């Protein structure tokens, strides 16, 4: 059986089912109990599982993430909610210096099977520091996995995989499309594998790589350009940012010979550069044009009155497609 759910509903359902399925799973975060989380991702879970398993914590991200590390080393599976990605910074040291390294330092004796969920990205008219896309920080740290679903189906399946993963996973939830659309989501538990991209739209002339909220922007641009110019663009939803699905990237560009990366993260040292590097290593001779990046600018995400101008739009993506195809 399946029914239509939004991304946020799919996330709630994944946590609900894992809480029910595995007594070791517990939730920690600010305002996640009575309030159900600032985006209501944990709505109803306190009533169902009680305050020992759905824990309203003090307002301290290092404390939350650090104690979750201890909980996970001693047999629990904590799912931490950080209210917004930019609020994670006080806990960054705990993630980088400990969560990511405990398995390594103890040669596999202790590990940290925790998930850190956090909304990320711009486009919700948020105040300052509510709209960041700094996935590269985490992709750069050996020991972490970084995931960013773009649809309700993937959100549920990837979150279940993340909870069952023996290593720490940073689970980035695209705030802008939390409730933007509904999609058929199976009622039962299922897994979407970490590290596997999916073809969101098939095409032959150019490959567009995107994740999170940018997948829809890429799809919109692909549809428009097909209508306007007759070019067929393939859209690859990477779904996992670390480890990247190299096979999917290479397979697509070998077919199309052209590529474009869309991400809302700042352009410099964003994951787009890493994708270009994979293409360079594996498919350079197949390429008919340089790989283009349509990305967030190298500026702080601006105040919301102009945030839409910061974000890649289907117009900017279309221009990039034209420049690449007509190179």
């Amino acid at each position, binding site marked *: 059986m399946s029914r239509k759910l939004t991304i946020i509903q799919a996330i709630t359902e994944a946590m609900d089912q894992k809480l029910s399925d595995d007594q070791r799973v517990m939730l920690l975060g600010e305002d996640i109990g009575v309030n159900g989380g600032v985006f209501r991702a944990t709505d109803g879970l306190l009533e169902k599982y009680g305050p020992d398993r759905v824990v309203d914590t003090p307002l301290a991200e*290092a404390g939350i*993430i*650090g104690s979750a*590390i201890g909980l996970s080393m001693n047999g629990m599976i904590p799912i931490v909610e950080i209210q917004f990605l930019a609020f994670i910074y*006080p806990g960054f040291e705990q993630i980088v*210096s400990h969560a990511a390294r405990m398995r390594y330092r*103890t*040669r596999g004796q202790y590990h940290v099977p925790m998930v850190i969920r956090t909304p990320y990205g711009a486009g919700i008219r948020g105040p300052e520091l509510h709209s960041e896309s700094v996935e590269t920080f985490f992709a750069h740290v050996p*020991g972490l996995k970084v995931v960013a679903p773009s649809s309700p189906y993937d959100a549920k399946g990837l979150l279940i995989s993340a909870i069952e993963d023996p290593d720490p996973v940073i689970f980035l939830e695209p705030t802008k499309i939390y409730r933007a659309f509904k999609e058929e989501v199976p009622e039962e538990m299922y897994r979407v594998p970490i590290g596997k991209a999916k073809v969101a739209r098939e095409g032959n002339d150019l490959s567009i790589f995107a994740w999170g909220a940018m997948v829809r922007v890429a799809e919109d641009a692909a549809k428009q350009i097909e209508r306007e110019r007759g070019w067929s663009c393939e859209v690859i939803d990477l779904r996992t940012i670390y480890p990247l699905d190299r096979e999917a990237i290479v397979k697509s560009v070998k077919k199309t010979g052209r590529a474009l990366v869309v991400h809302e993260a700042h352009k410099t040292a964003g994951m787009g550069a890493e994708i270009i590097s994979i293409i360079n290593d594996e498919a350079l001779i197949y390429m008919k044009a340089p790989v283009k990046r349509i990305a967030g600018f190298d500026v702080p995400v601006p105040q919301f009155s102009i945030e839409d101008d910061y974000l890649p739009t289907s117009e900017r993506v279309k221009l990039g497609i034209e420049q690449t195809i007509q190179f």
Partner: protein
Amino acid sequence: MSELTNLYQVLTPDGELLENIGDKLDDAMIVKMYESMVLVRAFDRKSVHLQRQGRMGTYAPFEGQEAAQIGSALALSPGDWLFPTYRDHAAAIVHGQSLSRVFLYWMGHMEGSISPEGKNIMPPCVPIATQMVHAVGTAWASKLKQEKHVSLAFFGDGASSEGDFHEALNFAGVFKTPTIFLCQNNGYAISVPLAQQSASKTIAQRGAAYDIPGIRVDGNDVFAVWLTTRAAIERGLAGLGPTLIEVITHRYGAHTTADDPTKYRDQHILAEEWRSKRDPIDRLRKYMDKHGLWNEMREAALNKQVAEQIDKALIEAESYPKSKPSDMFQHVYAEPTWMIKEQEQELPKPKGERGVTA
């Protein structure tokens, strides 16, 4: 210099008892305390020598702080969680870590932080105060699983300035975790004295802010440290929550073998004040002599046995198979990612093997 007044003390520097310990501390435990302190001091001195000889990397000595570490760690039960910093290998050793493993750690071996079977001895924590929140988490999990174990986190006076110190105390207070926070206040965070670290006169008083008992103890009095830690453990296991213990002590030597303490303090005066008047081992020895628990013959036998034990551990460590370059690629994840697998292949192969020669 930290305040030396209003400290909980059981054994005076002259080896006199200030309270009756008969029903709490038996002679066997007292002898064990002494033997442990003698062992770790000899180990510490040996380690400094080994570093000077180039047989070990930079080393953080703890001489002078033996009672603080031995007294507290000896109060633990085998399954309790221990979170040492880089200066707390004395505590790790009495909680069950092998001497050779500690040598391996300071020799830069990849396997220097493995906990012995059945023990939960965490790797020495380098970033200051960050381990304190882990000790909240492990204790919290013990409580949720209804296991009768506590978590003991060591930290120094400098760590009390870090945010994680406050977050750990606050979380432990809120969730009433069986965590013992043991501050070895040795007066200096490398070179900065406590008076410059904080306007707080004591570390223990910070407990009041989180409604956690904060106790100040003579850290060179092994009885006082053990009794205080025992009480904190019992309190934690009774579901009453965490305890903050501040033990006042002194490191005789440098912060690490890469540090020169004469730049920031008068080593001569401090040695006079601490080594000659308040040494933790001398103090216990005075008590043992008075109570017929020790004699020169036993001392000689112990010194011989300790030297042999350390030599044996050193031989073990130095003959332990060296870390291989490929070891760096293991245990990053449960399953290595494709990047890690491929990058391992980029390592130059030793001559004679297939692939690129070194």
